[in-house]
């Protein structure tokens, strides 16, 4: 059974390929990479999860840059197949939203 909450921490290595070309001279993490971090955290915290089928009200409020440390906080959404995430860096919210998943089939 999956827990109702989870956390994970990441450090954004300056040489990470996600910064390549985005953008030259002023690298910031693409928005889709915030979602990738949330999914990585879910993969660590949840024992089973279906396919990602939707996103709701995902907000990107602050840019992440090379070297930043990120904490991901997860809570189950109102639907059993949804997970709310928050990404914070130095305690400041950088992005948040709801991820929807398909039912897990055995």
């Amino acid at each position, binding site marked *: 059974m999956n827990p109702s909450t989870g956390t994970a921490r990441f450090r954004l290595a300056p040489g*990470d*390929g*996600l910064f*390549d*070309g*985005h*953008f*030259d001279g*002023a690298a*910031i*993490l*693409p*928005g*889709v*990479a*915030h*979602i*990738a971090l949330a*999914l990585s955290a879910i993969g660590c915290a949840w024992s089973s999860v279906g*396919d*990602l*089928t*939707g*996103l*709701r*009200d*995902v*907000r*990107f*409020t*602050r*840019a*992440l840059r090379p070297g930043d440390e990120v904490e991901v906080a997860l809570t189950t959404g109102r639907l059993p197949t949804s997970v709310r995430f928050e990404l914070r860096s130095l305690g400041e919210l*950088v*992005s948040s*939203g709801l991820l929807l998943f398909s039912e897990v089939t055995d």
Partner: protein
Amino acid sequence: MAELPGNLSVVLPHTGVARLLTGVTSCQNGAVRATAAIPASHPLCDGRHAPIYLGLELGAQAAAAMEAIERARGKPSSGAVRGSLVRVREATLLAPHLPVDVPLQVTARLEGAAPPVAIYRIDVAVDGHTVMHAIISTHNGTTAGSGS
């Protein structure tokens, strides 16, 4: 109608593997149609597949291209501007993956704007079949969000 860009570097600040748009097919009446491809070397790919949510980046790049084309029509010396994806209001993902190194079709239609924020309805298709659609907001500048 003004000419469409043959070189995407004039409308997109993304370079290298980060630039996923490959061409702009049309840009008129508040909508842009573009082509895209995700290289197998993209850092979010596993070599054979790309995560379906990467389609959000395709839509954001299409929206950024349209904004740059519209700016150029009003002021020919203008060019690419670093914008930000600030919100995904909703996204529906109809496939688990996007194929890599395969032509993709991307559309972005302007739904509303309160500069510097604009709202777009985006759609990503493979072989004409929609695999992802979403409503996103972008910010025309680098003061907010996460880049597009």
